């Protein structure tokens, strides 16, 4: 178990670091949320950031996606300072799904997903054959092809979330940052989305960083867990190393047993609670 955040025995020199945070200090207004945090995102991995509400995980994701400029330290994308790369160039490499995104009234699913092609377009090139192929593919992956001409605001929460993920996929980037991609989804759809993430990772080599609330799904679908508390990383590594009863008590203040998931063998969190008969 690596509770020391600076020790990363699993990162070897052969691994390519796609995205790196170096001593980043992040905050809004007068409030400093993250004070000096380091993180490496290795090529071809699925990383889940977990932690209690308000621990700074979404803030960290926003900084990794250059939506929030660090007050100190830096974020490196493929070794270059992310804020020194033209934002449109970044958008061809790194796609992101913000938390609870909003679409204007009346926008159809197809038009929303097509917005994802923006980094590849210009004012005279608004719907190339590549754009069309990417949009079709993205809608198929998320199973929303038959909803293409429906307005986004008329969809159910789950359908809407899949439409937004579809937009991020249409962007065609090999790095994806997903901020709570499974909110509003019932369990079946949560699994569906995470299966899609796994498929994108295994079949297409996409590197994914996602903020997740469900610890069991995080342990199942991420090969790396990053656990945050009060703006710091308190543990990171493989789920089996990180997801321990001590960590749950320390980070989440949760009394729980951790047993092997009977299906996948990954850690399964079983809260103890008081209503046990």
């Amino acid at each position, binding site marked *: 178990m690596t509770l020391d955040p600076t020790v990363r025995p699993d990162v070897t020199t052969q691994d390519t670091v796609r995205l790196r945070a170096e001593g980043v200090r992040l905050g809004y207004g007068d409030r400093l949320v993250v004070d000096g945090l380091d993180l490496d995102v290795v090529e071809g991995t699925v990383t889940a950031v977990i932690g209690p509400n308000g621990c700074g995980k979404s803030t960290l994701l926003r900084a990794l996606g250059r939506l929030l400029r660090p007050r100190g330290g830096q974020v490196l994308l493929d070794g270059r300072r992310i804020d020194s790369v033209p934002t449109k160039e970044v*958008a061809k490499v790194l796609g*992101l799904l913000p938390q609870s995104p909003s679409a204007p009234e009346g926008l159809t699913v197809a038009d929303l997903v097509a917005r994802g092609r923006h*980094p590849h377009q210009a004012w005279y090139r608004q719907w190339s054959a590549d754009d069309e192929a990417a949009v079709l593919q993205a809608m198929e992956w998320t199973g929303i092809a038959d909803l293409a001409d429906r307005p986004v605001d008329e969809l159910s929460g789950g359908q809407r979330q899949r439409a937004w993920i579809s937009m991020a996929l249409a962007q065609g980037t090999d790095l994806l940052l997903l901020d709570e991609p499974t909110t509003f989804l019932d369990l079946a759809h949560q699994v569906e989305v995470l299966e899609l993430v796994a498929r994108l990772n295994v079949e297409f080599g996409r590197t994914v960083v996602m903020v997740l609330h469900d610890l069991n799904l995080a342990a199942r679908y991420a090969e790396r867990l990053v656990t945050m508390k009060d703006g710091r990383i308190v543990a990171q590594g493989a789920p089996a190393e990180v997801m321990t009863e001590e960590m749950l008590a320390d980070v989440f203040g949760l009394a729980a047993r951790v047993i092997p998931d009977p299906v996948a063998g990954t850690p399964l969190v079983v809260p103890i609670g008081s209503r046990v008969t």
Partner: protein
Amino acid sequence: MALAVSLPPARVPGRRALRIGPVSLVWRPRVALVGLAGVAVLVLGLALNVGIGEVRISVPDVLITLLGGGDPGQRFIVVGLRLPRSLTGALVGAALAGAGAITQAIVRNPLASPDVIGFTAGASAAAVFVIVLGAGFGSVGFTASVVGLPLAALIGGLLSAFAIYALAWRKGVQGFRLVLVGIGINAMLIAVVEWLLVIAQVTDAARAYTWINGSLNGRGWEHVVPVAVALAVLVPAALVLAHVLGALQLSDDSARGLGIPVDKARTLLLLTAVGLCSVATASAGPLAFVALVAPQIAQRAVGAARPPITISLIFGAALTVIADLLARTAFGAELPVGIVTAVIGAPYLLYLIARQGRRTRA
């Protein structure tokens, strides 16, 4: 490379491709149809409006004359005397509607129109300032009305837009905040105009007053030219810049994620809009509600999720010309066109405010 037009069947519903060489667009038949209908209404309205006067000229005769036919007498009346008025109306309406389409889209709120949030009021205040004080210097008067008015209006529009943007700024601009600040600034600027009217000479005040109501009376080619030049420069700029509007209309975070330099894009688009509505205001006075209503009608007509710029331009032109036609014929006496657009627009503004109020509470 072969320059072949290919119209393959739509594989993504509603997004049929129109591709010519490196150029590719989404072909939307409804937009084209609505655009053509708008142009037809505009041309008919223009012809009707030009035909009205002491010498009545029929619509076919007006059209023939405009296409180069007709006798010299008719030519003089149509092209020399009457066309500038209608043309000023059409161009001013187009400019206002274009400005409205841009601001409504970037603020993601139909209330964020230049005539509601104080951009045109800024232009008005500056222009009235020139009318009232410029006339005080006697000979400066004429120069001021041709060169000075558009310039003053532009400066006034830019200043008010800057003030509103700066006051609404809080780590980015939120739509409703900008609207509220804008309505406040709008009220202040209207008070400034009232004050200028009070201190002005009676003759200047009368002149300024007609202008404030938005009038196309006595507009000549000297009024057409500034708006035409402004449109020729700003509309292409707006159409190129508008490429980001679709993505910008999502949230700021989504737009940044899609590689849009959000603050820069929004500033450039706002400047374009301020330029359009200021020059329009200088030419015909602050024509009420054209910038608010025309883009909204255009959006509903094409069934889009945001005001379409090109269609808004056409609808704004048609709306203004028809309003002028009504102002001249429907009420016995000839009214300033701005009163008619206000009568059309004010109920719509109330409807929008009521609807948003409900939604905010919900």
